[in-house]
């Protein structure tokens, strides 16, 4: 839908060439004042809006569009202690060719692995267009010294990772040391080179929506290319409400700075129905500029097979079954 919203107004600060929020990150207290000055979030209202958008009925052609779009947005993920080169190669093959029965199926956006598997993934995906994303910074807990975290990032980048999924220091965030979190993200970003940086907040641990909004702005101010909900390793991962909130944040950030930032909900999104709900959130919150795998991703693994089965149903008219998609 067209929007009549005025184009983002460059603020005085950005006309000067700096970030309009340069002052906000000048000191710990300035950053705290800025983050705590963001509009509050009413839990019930936010969740009600997310639920309301969840009732959109997406059928036929719209559904076909949404399924292909969702497939193309997946960061096909394996983040297990038991990961092996074989496992990663199988996953890479699936990312490139998700449905062996239907070669028109789009490729996923990326394969997401631990840093030590990045090189394997890069090799397996060479020339496919599918990106390699690597988690880093002592994923998932992020409990390591900064130089260890940075070394982790350097490793992944050196292995050829196109994207780095870092975790923030939730301990620092929750104890109010926002500038520490900010500086860590800035340092990681500096190590990324041309790799795009996704910043994981672990929203389930931040607990409140106010915190999620603050973290989103903190991440964007620090130079995140993507804000990402979670690691997939805690009880609550991506939800429609926390993703909606982050979509509002990237929308507002672009309006105020002109800089577009992507969003990646991760963990817990398993069905086509769920995925479509997230795409509706994107469509009606950030808008169609984000309806592209350059700006929106799903961190998921089992979601892909459900999307494929639904895709088969749409093209054949029959319900599919798990024997008609691949297990990897």
């Amino acid at each position, binding site marked *: 839908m067209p929007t009549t919203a005025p184009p983002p107004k460059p603020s005085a600060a950005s006309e000067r060439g700096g970030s309009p929020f340069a002052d906000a990150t000048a000191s710990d207290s300035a950053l705290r004042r800025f983050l705590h000055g963001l509009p509050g979030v009413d839990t019930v209202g*936010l969740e009600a809006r997310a639920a309301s958008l969840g009732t959109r009925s997406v*059928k036929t052609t719209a559904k076909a569009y949404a399924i292909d779009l969702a497939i193309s947005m997946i960061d096909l993920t394996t983040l297990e202690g038991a990961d092996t080169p074989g496992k990663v190669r199988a996953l890479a093959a699936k990312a490139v060719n998700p449905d062996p029965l239907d070669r028109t199926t789009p490729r996923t956006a990326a394969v997401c692995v631990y840093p030590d598997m990045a090189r394997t993934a890069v090799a397996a995906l060479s020339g496919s267009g599918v990106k390699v994303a690597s988690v880093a910074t002592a994923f998932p807990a992020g409990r390591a010294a900064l130089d260890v975290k940075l070394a982790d990032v350097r490793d992944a980048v050196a292995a050829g990772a196109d994207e780095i999924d870092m975790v923030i220091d939730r301990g620092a965030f929750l104890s109010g040391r926002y500038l520490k979190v900010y500086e860590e993200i800035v340092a990681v970003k500096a190590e990324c080179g041309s790799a795009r940086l996704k910043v994981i907040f672990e929203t389930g641990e931040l607990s409140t929506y106010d915190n999620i909004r603050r973290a989103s702005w903190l991440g964007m101010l620090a130079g995140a290319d993507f804000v990402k909900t979670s690691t997939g390793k805690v009880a609550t991962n991506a939800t429609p409400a926390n993703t909606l909130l982050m979509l509002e944040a990237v929308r507002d950030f672009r309006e105020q700075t002109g800089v577009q930032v992507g969003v990646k909900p991760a963990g817990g999104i398993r069905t086509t129905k769920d995925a479509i709900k997230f795409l509706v959130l994107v469509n009606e919150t950030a808008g*169609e500029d984000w309806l592209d795998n350059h700006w929106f991703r799903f961190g998921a693994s089992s979601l892909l097979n459900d999307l494929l089965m639904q895709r088969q149903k749409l093209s054949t008219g029959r319900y599919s079954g798990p024997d008609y998609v691949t297990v990897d």
Partner: protein
Amino acid sequence: MASAFDYAPAPESRSVVDIAPSYGLFIDGEFTEAADGRVFKTVSPSTEEVLSEVARAGAEDVDRAVKAARKAFEKWSALPGSERAKYLFRIARIIQERSRELAVLETLDNGKPIRETRDADLPLVAAHFFYYAGWADKLDHAGYGANPRPLGVAGQIIPWNFPLLMLAWKIAPALATGNTVVLKPAETTPLSALFFADICRQAGLPRGVVNILPGYGDAGSALVEHPDVNKVAFTGSTAVGKAIARQIAGTDKRATLELGGKGANIVFDDAPIDQAVEGIVTGIFFNQGQVCCAGSRLLVQESVHDEVLHALKRRLSTLRLGDPLDKNTDIGAINSAEQLARISALVETGEAEGAERWSAPCELPSTGYWFAPTLFTGVTQAHTVARDEIFGPVLSVLTFRTPDEAVAKANNSQYGLSAGIWTEKGSRILAVANRLRAGVVWANTFNKFDPTSPFGGYKESGYGREGGRHGLEAYLDV
């Protein structure tokens, strides 16, 4: 409207409802023609298609219906409360069973989106019957003394904006307390009340306990005037409410009146802005703004005016206006050509008086009655659009500087039905809520309804409360 992600049409199936070509009046358990044989057509406001031809009640029919209700009153009021309760529980359950059918019917006859009838109207209708069913055998404990008695025959007149929900608000407490009922639905939306008559039959409700008289204002007036009516319950315009209050002056008839409003929705600079925007949208565009408690006056703190307006316009541009049966429609049709004309006239007045109009960019269907979501900025207390109830999807935006000014402006109205407060500061919510002269105050939310929650106005928004324990009082001789 072209977008990469264009939702394909997702119409709810019309086949779940079977509308007969004609309907009679429901009197004493039977469908019957009007004494003078008059009928009127009810149309679907989104297509102007004639849905059915309905008998039009006149004074003679009112008399017949009141007599039937009087006759039924003796036995009905003498039933143990637990038995009345079970009838109401049956009705609640049948409504739940038939809720999709009723939602589609309501959407067809009223023009409101299926999303609303399915997710708001029908669940609330069933909940209302369920709630009051439970009261029927507990009246001794309701705080009105031991063994409170019903009033007798209740004449009930309901509007077209929430046809079945308003029926529930009227009939459920009346029956629970042992009254019998003659109900007149609005002339543009008679069908769901007639389907409800069928539900009464399915539930085995004794004849004459509920009588339904589709008709116009003349039938409503005859009902109010009827000497054997003990109680008048009316929801509708303030003008008609005043006329009713005059009509019953000097009689023993009790009355509850739920009338107009011009609700102020107050947004402070520390509001949760995204949720406030949703609340503003819900406040004025729910049911196309055809809601007596709509937040039709947005009072926004001057310091955040531009930010809120920008976000609001952006949000309004995503509203989907069109086929009410489409599950993705947010804004349906205006209920009637007459109402559309009224809205249009007031909007013209707003423009003529110099307020700045903005309407959401959406295509209006070529048939049916439609009005694009609209807002006026630069509105002051002196503008007609700040004072008169528009009863349509039109928001008037005013500014204020301080909480005192917000309260003063909010209260500066002959109405006093609803208000909204948006701020993250708890003490401000309480202080402002305390000083608002309105029957329902939504803080950091808007347009929420519940059968346990008393609803009704101050000042010219009427008197009496519907819902909750309070709602019993209107039907008891206490």
